[in-house]
């Protein structure tokens, strides 16, 4: 479904990811893990079109998307939830959600993903009229994911959804990710909390200083002795 080949991205001449190749098949949950500064976020930004790759190609459902404008990539079915969420803070929860379905004209198309959103995060339905900035960190993350779901994506990309959130809500969010996959979407997730992430993922990539260090099924990665020592602290 999504395939990146030899993707290299640089900021101001500093290479953030270098010749990274990855594949995501339909219906998978793929986890990208690695230490701070390993290039995980850059990888997602590049796929989403927020950064342009210096070289390499990215294809989505067979069509090249590298170099395409970011809003066009969203329109093609890739929803991206950035690390800092980028909600519209002074707009209401309802308006944030409605903006998610901006691309659709008919009310039916707009309401359809709403049912899923309220099933995943019932507490959002109680806060529809509140401004987004008044939500707690965890609720904001839920809203950011929900807004992304409103674009009815085929691929959902999450950057560090657990960051700055109470542990209890983290579990809730990971559970939601699984249910999102069960609803027919594909998920690419970047996480520092590798252990939890590997629990729900099918496959995983480990990045180190901008390169792919290791890849494989989640169970392979989980049982790899080097990973256990270096990343899982076991």
């Amino acid at each position, binding site marked *: 479904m999504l395939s990146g080949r030899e993707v290299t991205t640089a900021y101001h001449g500093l290479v953030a990811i270098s010749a990274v190749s990855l594949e995501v098949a339909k219906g998978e949950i793929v986890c990208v893990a690695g230490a701070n500064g390993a290039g995980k976020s850059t990888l997602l930004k590049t796929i989403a079109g927020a950064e342009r790759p210096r070289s390499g190609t990215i294809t989505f459902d067979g069509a090249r998307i590298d170099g395409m404008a970011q809003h066009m990539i969203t329109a093609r079915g890739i929803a991206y939830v950035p690390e800092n969420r980028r909600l519209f803070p002074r707009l209401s929860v309802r308006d944030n959600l409605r903006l998610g379905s901006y691309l659709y004209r008919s009310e039916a198309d707009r309401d359809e993903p709403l049912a899923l959103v309220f099933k995943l995060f019932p507490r959002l339905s109680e806060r529809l009229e509140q401004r987004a900035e008044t939500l707690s960190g965890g609720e904001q993350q839920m809203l950011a994911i929900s*807004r992304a779901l409103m674009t009815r994506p085929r691929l959902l990309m999450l950057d560090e959804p657990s960051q700055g959130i109470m542990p209890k809500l983290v579990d809730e969010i990971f559970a939601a990710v699984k249910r999102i996959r069960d609803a027919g979407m594909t998920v690419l997730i970047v996480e520092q909390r590798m252990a939890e992430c590997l629990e729900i993922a099918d496959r995983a990539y480990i990045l180190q200083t901008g390169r792919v260090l290791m890849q494989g099924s989640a169970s392979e990665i989980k049982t790899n002795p080097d990973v256990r020592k270096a990343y899982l602290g076991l």
Partner: protein
Amino acid sequence: MTAETIIQSLASGLLMGLLYGLIAVGLALIFGLMDVVNFAHGEFLMIAMYATFFLFAFFALDPLLSAPLVAAALFLFGAVVYLLVVRFAVRAKANAGMVQIFSTFGLAIVMRGFAQFFFTPDYRSVTHSWLGGKTVSIAGIFLPVPQLVGALVSIAAFVALYFFINRTDFGRALEATREDAGAVALVGIDKNRVFALGWGLGAALVGLAGAIMAIFFYIYPDVGAWHWAASAACSVRLPAASSSVWSKPPPH
């Protein structure tokens, strides 16, 4: 000064204030949306007034009828200005603040120059129109009809704008872009399109004001500079600017 004259000048000041408010709303819309002051806003007004004048001179079209046409033309003009000039100005890496100011300011100077070149510095006026010169007396206070209609049009435009921004998808997109222009791509909105439409809308509002002001103000290449200053004063939230300092262009 009797109480009557005070009320009289208050009333006409209020009417003019509403028209200036229409210009200022256009300016504020653009400023709020992308933090750029349109220093050519007065020149937008100037070409709107000239457009009204020429529609009158060549097609005998009354300013009231040409107002929607002028507003539509200004809409296009504003969007084009964004796409050709401002879009590049906001990308500047060096001297960003100065570039933002001088790009639209330079445009203002060019427009004034073209107006002098093609239209000559002569004062023009719409010599006769349905409303021009008419007054109406309400409870002993005489109000000029063009200004009164201008005020009503302004109020209608404010209400329409309010509903447009609060009740439509595009209005919501406008608000979102104003909140975080970098984030709208996440929901598939092209921020350049929103900006272009925002500029178009701001220009259309000033076009509407210009068409009506053409009924009772002289039209000349520098006319925008004056009204611009007045409306800018409004948008710095001074009370409705209609003191004598601002009213240099004499009504006729």
